[in-house]
């Protein structure tokens, strides 16, 4: 895995993505 | 009576029986009221009843075409003020608006002033 895709994380189960507060923002103050 | 709309919302938002309270969870979603305005000066208030520490809300005004599965202020059809830092949002750009933001127990008032179109009597 890591040789072909170093950033890839192998999972056994689906994981729920926790959205960030700024998920939809292009720019914050 | 102006109430929270049962249809004009992201369907997984929880509405109270009296349709005056909405509770969100997980990612940002939006809901609109049963009435809108087209011209004149209008004002409404909302109270923050509860807000977990790591959460936030955005309150404001939105047109019919605003996305409801994002916070208001995501696109060009809405304008909002965020509880965190009081940032104002429009088209996904946040700008400084006030110091401190708002929290549980605070009442947020939103005023809109829309000029009367020339061809409307």
């Amino acid at each position, binding site marked *: 895995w890591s040789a072909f895709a170093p*950033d*890839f*994380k*192998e*999972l*056994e*189960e*689906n*994981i*729920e*993505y926790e*959205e960030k507060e700024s*998920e*939809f923002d292009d720019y914050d103050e | 009576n102006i109430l929270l709309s049962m249809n004009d919302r992201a369907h*997984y938002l929880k509405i109270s029986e009296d349709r005056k309270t909405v509770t969100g969870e997980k*990612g940002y979603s939006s809901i609109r009221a049963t009435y809108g305005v087209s011209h004149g000066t209008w004002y409404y208030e909302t109270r923050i009843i509860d807000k977990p520490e790591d959460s936030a809300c955005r309150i404001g005004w939105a047109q019919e075409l605003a*996305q409801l*599965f*994002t916070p208001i202020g995501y696109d060009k059809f809405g304008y909002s003020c965020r509880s965190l830092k009081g940032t104002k949002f429009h088209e996904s750009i946040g700008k400084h608006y006030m110091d401190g933001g708002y929290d549980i127990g605070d009442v947020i008032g939103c005023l809109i002033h829309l000029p009367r179109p020339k061809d409307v009597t």
Partner: protein
Amino acid sequence: DLLKLNQLKFRKKQVKFARSKIHVWGLFAMQPIPPDEMVIEYIGQRIRPMVAEIREKKYLNEGSSYLFKIDSDTIIDATHCGNVARFINHSCNPNCYAKVITVEGQKRIVIYSKQLIEVGQEITYDYKFPIEDDNKIPCLCRSVGCRGFLN
């Protein structure tokens, strides 16, 4: 539900990813797989459709994406995390199919075999992309009855 959960955990088949004649990498059977058997679950990150929409635009610029729609509320994104099921290529004449099953109240994507799959055979399923008039994606499966495009 418990039976389904056990099946997911214990009845997945031995597979491996390797170079594919269809497209770059593919998934291959390491054991014979009888028809209508569970092959593997498509695993990744559960996201909302709006998040998927934003990510898809970003992924198109980066090269490829692995988004699988479960229903109108949930998409599985295996682009940055998941399992080898993400390597399964499309075929217009596939040997497997994808099915959404519900286990303990949660929907999951599972790949099942349509027919007997021999050791070393590539595992494929029909991606079932919605048909589009433009932005056509050519299909590389070269199978009998190939539709020419993924969409």
